[in-house]
């Protein structure tokens, strides 16, 4: 894979400029700078070159050049990812798909949209709105993140318990292989013959191919949506009431939990009327026909009371619903106000383990002397602990990262996993060997080889090579056992 000894940076630039407009081939330090990281800015690397092709044929040619010379290639959408999955390779090319912004078709009859990879997630729903349709998955970054990136990470969002992840909402993709060959995975129908390569591509973090077009399903906009907010004196009761709602047969459109840190930061920021004295807060959104929402809201209110909620409030208007959500949606920046920096984690756990996990996390928080606020997609067990730290204090980020790693290990120990929706990237690559055995990682590597035998697509991300996980195992066991992460 050593490349640059074959081709200098200037030569490579020249080569790209033969088929891409020179202003779209970036090689100077200053213009390269914004590409050095994605949404996880603690991980930076300057790329050799950034290219911004404008046609699929140009992308194809970029792939061919990189393949021919063995040059690492990192595809990039809006750069909002949170796992350093789009962090450049120092000897490689960043392939920005930012110019592929066109919504190619919104078809109200089949309730589908055909999109270029650089279309923003929210723009899909905006374009579909005139037909009474929308796109289901809604990651918090939906105002900026792109559908191409969503496919790469198999993004979720607040509504995925009911409406699924990206993989459930993509019908087909056009993809370029590492050799630059065009293939279509999936079709206009719901199932395909043969191996389900579409399932493999969703969440593959740019390691298997470059997606150049995506066909998604659109859903009818629900007639009505209302949200019930409930405050609780303790986390256990809040967790139990989530189980109670599910057991009653209701699948809420969204079911979110915040702990006291997050409640109080969000309330100070958004003034949504959250009970600041509560230890846990639940937001339960119910959508559907007007009749259905009425029926379910009454059930949810009753359930919250029966599980000991100290306060229950239901949105009476759209404005009130938006306000109640505003607190939750601004929880991350709100937490940012009470600390110089924060580090967002993304583990999943079986919901029943929530109280145990929060207790353990508090213990780790005491040990590391770092505060942690919790925001939780309670419906689907996806936990977002926000570790508060100060990057200007020497060593504090290292400590934060170690604490974060322990949280992910705790998630695995209780039967969960290291990432629910942010992806592995570089950030969680060490924890891959906590969730998977060496043989399982070898199987992943073999799948990678099936698509990309030379390993030029986003190298070093997603799946550790065996050498790497052996290193982790041999270096880490002492450190890993130090706090004696309890198995729940």
């Amino acid at each position: 894979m050593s490349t640059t000894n074959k081709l200098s940076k200037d030569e490579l630039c020249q080569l790209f400029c033969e088929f891409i407009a020179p202003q779209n081939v970036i090689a100077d330090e200053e213009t390269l700078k914004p590409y050095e990281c994605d949404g996880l800015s603690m991980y930076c690397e300057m790329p050799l070159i950034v290219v911004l092709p404008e046609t699929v044929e140009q992308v194809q040619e970029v792939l061919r050049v990189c393949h021919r010379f063995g040059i690492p290639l990192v595809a990039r959408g809006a750069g909002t990812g949170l796992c350093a999955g789009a962090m450049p390779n120092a000897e490689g090319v960043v392939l920005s798909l930012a110019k592929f912004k066109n919504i190619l078709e919104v078809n109200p009859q089949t309730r589908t949209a055909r999109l270029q990879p650089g279309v923003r997630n929210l723009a899909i729903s905006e374009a579909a709105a005139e037909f009474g349709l929308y796109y289901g998955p809604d990651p918090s970054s939906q105002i900026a993140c792109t559908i191409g990136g969503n496919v790469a990470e198999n993004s979720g969002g607040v509504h995925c318990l009911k409406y699924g992840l990206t993989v459930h909402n993509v019908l087909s993709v056009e993809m370029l292989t590492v050799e630059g060959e065009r293939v279509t995975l999936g079709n206009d129908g719901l199932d395909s013959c043969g191996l389900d390569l579409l399932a493999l591509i969703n969440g593959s973090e740019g390691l298997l191919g470059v997606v150049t077009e995506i066909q998604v399903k659109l859903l009818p906009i629900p007639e009505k949506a209302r949200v019930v907010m409930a405050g609780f004196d303790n986390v256990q009761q809040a967790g139990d009431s989530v189980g109670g709602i599910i057991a009653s047969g209701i699948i809420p459109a969204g079911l979110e939990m915040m702990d006291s840190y997050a409640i109080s930061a969000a309330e100070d920021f958004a003034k949504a009327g959250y009970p600041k004295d509560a230890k846990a807060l639940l937001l339960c959104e119910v959508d559907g026909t007007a009749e259905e929402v009425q029926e379910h809201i009454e059930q949810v209110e009753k359930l919250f009371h029966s599980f000991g909620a100290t306060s229950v409030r239901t949105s009476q208007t759209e404005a009130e619903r938006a306000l109640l959500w505003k607190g939750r949606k601004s929880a991350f920046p709100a937490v940012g106000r009470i600390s110089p920096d924060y580090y967002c984690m993304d583990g999943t756990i079986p919901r029943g383990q929530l109280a145990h996990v929060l207790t353990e996390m508090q213990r780790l928080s005491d040990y590391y002397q770092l505060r942690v606020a919790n925001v939780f997609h309670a419906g689907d067990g996806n936990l977002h602990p926000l570790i508060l730290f100060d990057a200007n204090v020497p060593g504090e980020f290292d400590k934060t990262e170690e604490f974060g790693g322990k949280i992910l290990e705790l998630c695995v120990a209780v039967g969960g996993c290291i990432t629910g929706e942010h992806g592995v990237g570089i950030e969680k690559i060490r924890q891959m060997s906590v969730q998977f055995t060496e043989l399982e990682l070898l199987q992943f590597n073999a799948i990678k080889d099936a698509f990309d035998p030379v390993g030029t697509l986003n190298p070093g991300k997603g799946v550790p090579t065996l050498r790497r996980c052996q290193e982790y195992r041999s270096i880490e066991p002492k450190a890993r056992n130090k706090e004696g992460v309890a198995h729940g």
Partner: protein
Amino acid sequence: MADLSADIQQQVLAARNDKQVLNIVGGASKSFMGREAVGERLDVSGHSGIVNYQPVELVLTARAGTQLTEIEAALAQNNQMLAFEPPRFSGVATIGGTLACNQSGPGRPWTGSVRDHVLGVRLINGLGEHLRFGGQVMKNVAGYDVSRLQAGAMGSLGVITEISLKVLPKPAARCTIVWDMGAQDAINFMNQLAARPKPLSAACWLQGRLYVRLSGAFSAVEATVKEWKGIELEHRHADEFWRQLGQQELSFFEISSSVRQGSSIGNVDMPLWRFSVNSAASIPSLDEHCIIDWGGSQRWLRGEQDKLHMESLAASAGGQVCLYAGGDRRSEVMHTTPAVLQIIQKRIKASFDPDGIFNPGRLYNWM
């Protein structure tokens, strides 16, 4: 009701050692699917039992040989279900075979397929390694999605030993309404209905009649029935219709017992074609003769046809066709795969099963 995974692992290792190819069999209910099976029978039906079921987590984990009837009975006690409504084939279908053959019923466009509900698997690959992928939680994006990759792979990548699935509450109410109309009108109407925010859960046309099922909260179902003004079917008849459709027991689907058992010798059954296409596409030469299910996305056709002609019709309708049952099971039965995708699929197969011992040729002649 036992964990036989160690035995199965030994059998795989022995087969690899002896260069013996294996034909993985659970309930043997879907032997008629795919190409003719070859190899020594590897019976996994004894590897059965529900390993873990947490109703409030909406997750169930079962060994691959567990019959769907056992799983559905356990779910029913908690008023839950497999929302992908898989065919039980006289009660002998297993969850492993259901995933391997990607079998889903009438609710598939609205509640998803088995592929959509699988959260994790354990499988034994061709090296005899027992591996675990995915998990028992709703969201898991660590590593490639090997679990969903098993859907429709027909056992070509390994012996699935355990599956974790998302399960869902049963809807509180359901009702079926019908309209009498032709195929083309039905295709248009089904697509119009699916664009409305109503509790639609199945839509199927056959023999001049469109059947539409509504499932959800009592009030929502009741209000929609009033608004849509179809003819309401009596519950008993409606349930029986959807059962026969989903279980592939309508006379349209009839497959003789010799074919069902995978014997292609003396196979005289009329070919049964399954189209997976754009929900709004019209295939004028066929539609009136089809069962048009999944709101237009799945079409079943019975009869002797030229496969390449069927493929070109499917492709112009935005999708694919396979020879689901009957006909010549020694030739290709799946839609033709482009050369580049053949190469990738062969490499993936080799990454799991380098010696090609699992179900060789079952999916494609070349794999």
